[in-house]
């Protein structure tokens, strides 16, 4: 996998999403359908380490989004 290109692809795909800012890991698998889920998982983790992405947690479920995008507290779709 070309890591840099995949990272750019992920960031661009996330920027295009309207209304939602936080996604399941499985949504990231779909963005890079040709890669093994495990490789995508590792890349997403790396992007969290690099502070491009960040985790959001309800306590029982974890979602992932672009750092700083969407709300810090509470879930999407609330206003």
């Amino acid at each position, binding site marked *: 996998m070309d890591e840099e290109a995949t990272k750019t692809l992920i960031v661009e795909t996330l920027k295009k999403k309207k209304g939602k800012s936080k996604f399941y890991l499985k949504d990231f698998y779909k963005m890079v359908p040709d890669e093994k889920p495990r490789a995508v998982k590792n890349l997403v983790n790396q992007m969290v380490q690099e502070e491009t992405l960040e985790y959001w*947690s309800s*306590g029982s479920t974890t979602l992932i989004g672009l750092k700083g995008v969407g709300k810090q507290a509470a879930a999407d779709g*609330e206003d």
Partner: protein
Amino acid sequence: MVEFKHKTPLIDQLETGPWTSFVSDIKREHESRMENPKGIDYQFNQECCDDLLGVLELSYDHGRTHWKHGGIVGVFGYGGGVIGRYCDQPEMFPGVAHFHTMRVNQPMGHYYKTDYLEQLMDLWERRGSGLTNMHGATGDIIFLGTSTPQLEEVFYELTHNINQDLGGSGSNLRTPSDCMGQSMCEYACYDTQEFCYNMTMEYQDELHRPAFPYKFKFKFDGCPNCCVAAIARSDLSFIGTWRDDIRIDQKAVKAYVGGELKPNAGAHAGRDWGAFDIQKEVIGLCPTECMSWDGSKLEINTPECTRCMHCINVMPRALRVGLDTGCSVLAGAKAPILDGAQMGTLIVPFIKVEEPYDEIKEKVVEPIWDWWMEEGKNRERLGELIKRQGMQKLLEVTNFKAVPQMIKEPRSNPYVFWKEDEVPGGWKRDINEFRKHHQR
């Protein structure tokens, strides 16, 4: 007298019952924080406990919660262990505007030394609300309530000074938990603490970096008494068992019958239940009717015994678990959030529990994770996936052979489809040959 900002007539009623109340606990912590006898340099809002009571009172009044759900908080490098909680009335209750929960890995078997407990509490009074939940449903230590800037500080002190890690939360491996096992309990069929610790260390990545469809729990019980209720609460339960005979000390059996030894180690001594009746209380209650007593000798028909522990619990001095010990593995237990509560289903009747536990890791845990991570829907627990795709699919991905012990009830799924390569000769058929003998 310490003042309380908020009047709390509704939740004060919770203090009037016969039991200790968390309302009284929170009030005590507020008094302690205001009086500050130890001269603590509080890094988190000193009045948080008062505000916590206030927001709860308001919720009781409104019949609605005033907490938002979820948030982006964590410590660097970890995706679990911190759960963001924010109050939706921060002006009214500034002390709990941020009130994040931290999950801390508990010591195996819940063994604490006093100085370790004091260290934990000193840290949490200084950098958090001072309120804890010992222990949460998952079994870990829960620190209730601190602000975002304190998270890294707490994490640093925990890991550097107290030598303790955060636990799991979110879509990851939750803090594994175990019974005290061989450290104190003669029933333990394997070393629960060693195994639990080993699995915690082996799966650090799964614990700290959420990559599962939903939460996943391991629990370790040393025997079928299930003191940590692994069978009901964990996606994979490891329950100690044995496959040889229950060891019988016939002399001790007679001592129970003769009244020299108290049944259940005297646990039912509070009332006079009359003389111990081995026929009624042990033989007659054996669920598989595999025991017999002729007045002088107790016999057990081992192949029928399901190791329910009843007889051993009643006469622990006379009966002991066997010597060929290991564990059973059950999969899929969960609480009712979606789709009803479920107990674990037996998937491995017996497996040896021996360091470095490679067989369990490579043949049980990892194939199941691979399947669930691939096929599980978002927020679908392993038990729900087993229900959706069937036990047969689970057996296929793990390569386990189906055995009669796996059937936990008369079959609830009537369909078992053989695959062609599982049937000798397959089932290619020649339709023309068939029509020669069967009219349309």
